[in-house]
């Protein structure tokens, strides 16, 4: 008889990682082989080299826009907080490194678990703040789609279940660990098909935009 934890660690992870790899490979190859757009206009003279334009745009987007700095400061800071928080939680906790090591053979020293818990709590608060901001801002609410909300849900759920599992809160550990792994499975399955794919595409798309701007002689 297979219990929930066995199911989560076994078939559920196998299928979700399979779907993740399939989806990401499909999207990246499709994007790489996409026919190039026909641009009839000629490049502007004396514009910056295209590659430099791309690099410039990647870094420019990492800082707040001067004109809108005041209005976008919350999104800017909060965005950095939960992205860095997720990175620290995923790559810093001992149990996660064990999972990655078992999967890929790669490992590195882990951070103290209590520090990772603290970062996870801050990340969770930041994600909740991001949702509240999205729901209360008329413009953001207007442009938000089901993809945005579901992406938020599948990102937040592993943080909640992970905190519960490591703190042994609310249920037996094996159930909490199974719930955490299953929430990761949901995240992996949704990853290639929703906005989470920006993890792979963010620098490529920003770089491409920067190159296009440079070609057109747009000064940013």
């Amino acid at each position: 008889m297979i219990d929930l934890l066995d199911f989560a660690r076994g078939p559920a992870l196998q299928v979700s990682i399979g779907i993740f790899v399939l989806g990401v490979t499909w999207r990246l190859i499709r994007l790489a082989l996409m026919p190039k757009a026909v641009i009839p206009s000629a490049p502007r003279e004396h514009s910056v080299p295209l590659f430099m334009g791309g690099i410039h745009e990647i870094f420019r987007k990492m800082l707040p826009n001067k004109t809108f700095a005041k209005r976008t400061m919350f999104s800017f800071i909060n965005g950095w907080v939960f992205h860095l928080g997720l990175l620290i939680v995923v790559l810093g906790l001992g149990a996660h490194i064990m999972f990655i090591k078992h999967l890929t053979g790669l490992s590195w020293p882990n951070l103290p678990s209590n520090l990772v818990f603290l970062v996870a709590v801050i990340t969770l608060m930041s994600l909740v703040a991001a949702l509240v901001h999205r729901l209360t801002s008329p413009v953001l609410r207007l442009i938000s789609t089901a993809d945005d909300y579901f992406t938020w849900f599948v990102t937040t759920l592993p943080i909640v279940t992970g905190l519960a599992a490591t703190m042994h809160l609310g249920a037996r550990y094996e159930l909490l660990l199974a719930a955490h792994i299953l929430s990761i499975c949901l995240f992996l399955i949704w990853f290639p098909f929703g906005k989470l794919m920006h993890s792979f595409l963010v620098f490529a798309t920003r770089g491409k935009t920067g190159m296009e701007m440079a070609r057109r002689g747009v000064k940013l």
Partner: protein
Amino acid sequence: MAKLYQNMFEASVPQALTLGEQLAQKGVSRRSILKFSSYVAAIMALPPSAASAMAESLAKTRRQSVIWLSFQECTGCTESITRSFSPTLEDLIFDFISLDYSETLMDVSGLAAEAARKQAMEENKGKYILVVEGSIPLKDGGVYSTSAGETNLEVLKDSAKDALAIIAVGSCATFGGIPAALPNPTGAVGVDKIIKDKPIINVSGCPPIPEVMTGTISYILSMGKLPDLDALGRPLAFYGETIHDRCYRRPFYEKGLFAKSFDDEAARKGHCLYEVGCKGPTTYNACATLKWNGGLTFPIQSGHGCLGCSEPDFWDKGSFYQPLSTHKGDLEKMVVGGAAIGATAGVTSAVVMRSRRAKAIKTAQKQAEIKVQKDSAAEDQSAQGGQHD
């Protein structure tokens, strides 16, 4: 041992005296019963007042008939219980129970042994406790384990029908154990998969902690009822918390300090064994509190991770040396298969996109040509119209 055997034979004779009277005749004081009750109450986390109530109840009871059946097992559970420090098996057998049948401990064999079981069942109908050690094979009519010409299944059903309660000791009797490990060639199962109409207490472990076995038996004897049980039918007093919850290495887990191998510096410093596969976080047992060998040590204290032997199917839960947070099974096939299908889908969709685009460009060019032709025809027509005018 001679005394033990003698006691066993005496035990098959019906007793008229209460346990208190019997023990008084043997020179065992009330204080000794109270001491015994206090220990049982303490290990089962009962309030101090329960000890005197248990002692009172014990003194009034009669010696409890116990029939111990051995099925598909390694005798490890019997080995374990004979090493109980307090209450010792001798305490139990000499003072509190009448072990009327045990293939391992009795010296008679063959028909005489079977007759002893039948006699005990007859004389204590509806009152005896049945202890089962080992799993029961069901495949092919249960032919894979028999004694005295009867299958384990037949012996269990026959012995259980008039039992007061059943105690399944060891992971084999409770969940099928190692005999039920995949592919389970004998169709082995635990007692509660067969007997449905009797109270069953599962005392799991491979083997169970001796004091958990003797403590459970003592509780039933003294309190005259079953202890509180968890969802798997195990006494909550012993199986209510995980080994991880009570492990002395737990602070290292909280700090994220893990041993990377069994003999590294971290292991010698007593760091957590989670990374070398310890199953303490998912294993419910009293190893970290009662410990083994009279409270001397337990596996984690000796430097080895918990195997999770008191949990169902512990043998089939992947490697003992693989951390709980890692995946089980073969992922390579899924990754390679996923990448291959993904690449094919990516190339196919790119080809489709390119061909659609080429088609669209062709159509657009054609339409443009037609438009040019139409426009020039219209121009010609209007030029000709102008000439006519």
